[in-house]
């Protein structure tokens, strides 16, 4: 049996980009390209982590996992665990004799509230209260293999999967009860955790029926699932699971966790990413009580019995570094053009020259997008424990299985010897794909033979993680007198190829992505390069509309065939009052749209620019979003509004400042992020189409806000801006073309 048929790969939208090699800092490649061999085959060619994993059953496990880290020492030995292939129910779901349902998934909760939505879909098919379900997430020993929680993939893949798992289970329970009662299955129904005989009202609880036995039965991919129009639990604004633990401060993130005998680890950091260690004097640290110094070539770390001591110890180390010459912010975009790879990653449609000949008007422009940081509320943290040759690491990551691979590769040990657990993390936004802290903690723990917790400072999180790529985008386009786009030439330098293509009808088009060896570690950030590509594209579309005196909404509708895209544009425009309201003096309106990860978004924004101070203020935002069937409307609204607010940062003022490769603003007092005062009234219009499959919603809602604001500023002042961030100091200055 070819297991590859059953594994869910994210489908790359622009498959023509082939990375030269799997760069360690090209984190985004893990997300974007299906040719990721890591995890499919082990070094000896056997198929391990993709298919085989452990599942421990029994009523106790849910309590062990949820109650806290101290129970770590009571966790079962690997030999006690049973293995199930991921096409079996037992890999994903278990019903205890007490009726409690445990669901297993390799996906992780990072604040997008999938723990709740996945619970809802299972509860729906089994008709049980949400409270009776415990989700075990992101534990490489207990949950099915998962490539990572990213790419807006959870809802379209795992939600669908768990729906089928739960529905198949329901059918199995009905079959079992029918046999037990020697009656027809059609007379039975599920309700409140029981099978009920509609004829005589006899009932039996699920747990009593299964007696807590594992459900070793294939998942029926054709099982009948409950239509969304009939949902009673899914599709509703169910409260966030674990909400009470969070609001009371009881919920623990990795940085909160403690183990007996644990010591605190700190790593010596270079002044810039591309520095090399020349020399280091660790004498003071060595002499400190309870402190151990770990030194492996350029890697120097310390452990201390408490956090303060570890900090004192690392700060006591005097080191000399070779700092290589690196670009500064002012020259970065020239640097991109200069260093662009000669490889031509190009997508061609039609004939560009003919397209330009057919154009009434043409427009050329360049757009720049700065490096920005994810700024997750909780910096990276990891807690590592060696028990003989077996390593367990708790860490905040979107890819527990990926981190396991990293650890296996680093230590040269088999993945079965490593367990990575993701208890929850204080947000990620694509910034926690990599396991730096996990490797650091594990290295120190191996050296000192004690559990080690490494918690990064905010500064370390800015400098030593990875950034959202900066980008330079050049567009040359032409349109006919009636507004149809006849020619489109698009070059993206460094940002990425996500969102390079769009739904606009462009008969003559070339899109190009130029790869650069970025001076900074860069990787996935919510929506990847689609933010940059949509900012440039939508801004250019708005300029073209203006060039031929056409309303930007009409221009878009003219060049779109996709009905869902048009519907979502009209929905946003209607809610905003695009057609029947006029901006007041010093006010402006802007509109933008995007299609990404099977989701459709359209954003309208109104700004006001103070004529004396030039300060820009966002007056209101209306955003329409279509992701098919909605699982939890309240949490979806949170994702939409949250993405818009985060997007405001990148649109208006967020930027990494750097000189000679050194980040100058690696602190929250220096790097501005959106706060309460920055938030305008935001109206989210959810297009809930209950007959369409569910798409993800974690990313696409961020795409419209930057170009919509840019257009609103032009509308208010006539000033055209070509940079993200648009107004770093809050004020609109004269047009600055890159």
């Amino acid at each position, binding site marked *: 049996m070819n297991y590859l048929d059953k594994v869910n790969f994210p489908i790359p939208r622009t498959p023509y980009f082939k990375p030269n090699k799997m760069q360690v800092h090209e984190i985004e490649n893990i997300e974007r390209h299906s040719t990721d061999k890591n995890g499919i085959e082990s070094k000896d060619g056997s198929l391990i982590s993709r298919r085989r994993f452990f599942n421990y059953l029994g009523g106790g496990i849910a309590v062990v996992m949820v109650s806290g880290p101290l129970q770590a020492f009571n966790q079962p030995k690997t030999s006690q665990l049973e293995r199930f292939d991921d096409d079996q129910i037992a890999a994903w779901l278990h019903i205890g004799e007490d009726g409690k349902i445990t669901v297993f998934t390799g996906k992780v909760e990072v604040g997008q509230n999938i723990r709740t939505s996945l619970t809802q879909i299972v509860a729906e098919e089994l008709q049980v209260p949400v409270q009776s379900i415990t989700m075990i997430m992101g534990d490489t020993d207990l949950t099915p293999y998962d490539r990572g929680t990213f790419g807006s993939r959870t809802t379209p893949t795992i939600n669908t999967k768990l729906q089928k798992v739960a529905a198949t289970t329901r059918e199995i329970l009905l079959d079992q009860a029918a046999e037990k009662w020697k009656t027809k299955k059609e007379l039975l129904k599920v309700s409140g955790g029981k099978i009920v005989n509609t004829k005589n009202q006899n009932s039996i609880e699920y747990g009593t029926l299964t007696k807590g036995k594992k459900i070793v039965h294939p998942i029926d991919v054709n099982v009948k699932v409950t239509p969304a129009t009939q949902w009673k639990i899914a599709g509703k604004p169910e409260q966030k699971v674990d909400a009470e633990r*969070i609001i009371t401060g009881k919920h623990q993130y990795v940085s909160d966790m403690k183990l007996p005998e644990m010591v605190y680890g700190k790593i010596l950091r270079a002044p810039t990413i591309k520095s090399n260690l020349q020399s280091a004097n660790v004498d003071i640290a060595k002499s400190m009580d309870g402190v151990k110094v770990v030194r492996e070539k350029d890697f120097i770390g310390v452990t201390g019995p408490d956090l303060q001591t570890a900090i004192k110890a690392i700060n006591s180390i005097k080191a000399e570094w070779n700092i290589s010459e690196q670009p500064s912010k002012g020259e970065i975009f020239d640097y991109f053009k200069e260093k662009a790879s000669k490889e031509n990653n190009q997508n061609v449609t039609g004939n560009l020259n003919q397209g330009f000949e057919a154009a009434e008007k043409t427009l050329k422009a360049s757009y720049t997008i700065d490096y920005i940081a994810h700024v997750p509320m909780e910096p990276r943290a990891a807690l590592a424990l060696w028990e003989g040759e077996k390593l367990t690491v708790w860490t905040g990551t979107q890819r527990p299985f990926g981190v396991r691979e990293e650890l296996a590769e680093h230590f040269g040990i088999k993945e079965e010897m490593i367990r990575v657990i993701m208890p929850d993390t204080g947000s990620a936004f694509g910034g926690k794909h990599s396991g730096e802290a996990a490797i650091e903690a594990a290295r120190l723990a191996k050296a000192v033979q004690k559990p080690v917790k490494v918690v990064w*400072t905010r500064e370390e999180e800015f400098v030593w993680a990875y950034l959202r790529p900066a980008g330079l985008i050049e567009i040359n386009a032409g349109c006919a007198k009636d507004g149809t786009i006849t020619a489109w030439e698009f070059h993206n330098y460094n940002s990425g190829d996500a969102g390079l293509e769009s739904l606009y009808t462009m008969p003559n088009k070339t899109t190009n992505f130029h790869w650069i060896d970025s001076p900074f570690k860069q990787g996935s950030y919510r929506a990847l390069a689609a933010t940059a590509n949509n900012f440039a594209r939508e801004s250019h579309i708005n300029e073209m509309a203006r060039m031929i005196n056409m309303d930007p909404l009409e221009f878009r509708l003219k060049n779109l065939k996709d009905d869902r895209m048009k519907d979502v544009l009209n929905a946003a425009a209607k809610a905003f009052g695009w057609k029947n309201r006029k901006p007041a003096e010093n006010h402006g309106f802007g509109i933008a749209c995007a299609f990404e990860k099977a989701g459709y978004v359209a954003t309208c924004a109104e700004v006001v620019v103070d004529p004396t101070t030039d300060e820009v203020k966002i007056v209101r935002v209306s955003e329409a979003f279509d992701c098919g069937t909605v699982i939890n409307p309240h949490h979806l609204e949170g994702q939409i509004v949250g993405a818009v607010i985060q997007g405001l940062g990148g649109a208006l003022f967020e930027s990494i400042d750097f000189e000679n490769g050194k980040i100058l603003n690696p602190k929250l007092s220096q790097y501005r992020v959106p706060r309460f005062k920055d938030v305008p009234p935001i109206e989210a219009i959810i297009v809930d189409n209950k007959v369409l499959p569910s798409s993800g919603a974690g990313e696409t809602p961020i795409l419209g806000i930057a170009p919509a604001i840019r257009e609103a500023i032009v509308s208010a002042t006539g000033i055209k801006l070509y940079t993200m961030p648009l107004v770093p100091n809050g004020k609109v200055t004269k047009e600055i073309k890159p």
Partner: protein
Amino acid sequence: MELTVNGIKHQIKSDSKTSLLNVIREELNMTGSKYGCGEGVCGSCTVLLDGNAVRSCIVEAGEASGKQITTIEGVSESEKLHPVQQSFLKEDVFQCGYCAPGMVMSAVGLLKKNASPSEEEIIEAMNGNICRCGEYPKIVKAIQQVSQG
């Protein structure tokens, strides 16, 4: 050094110059208050000192001696949750939840001073707390519901 946290006196071994956040999280094992920035600008570490919301990461433990320290673990005075916590639950605020304790403590501090703040006053008072997930509108609404309820 002696610190009174949530009504209970503790003998503290840490140096008096250690941050209050550090003492609470490490020595007293109360991890509800969070580290977010270490420089008092994100609000994750907010506790009350004699009823005033402060950023415990930039308060020296010694400064808190002799004062009533209230953390998220002790903000509800009984078995029931504090009205702010109840309101946050009712509004189902929070995505990743990391900023939650700090938000609650800042809100409690605000309402102690101003029982019916206007929306502008709420935004002004809460502006020192960051929520990167962008739950700001729901948080404002939740606080408004407390003062109205």
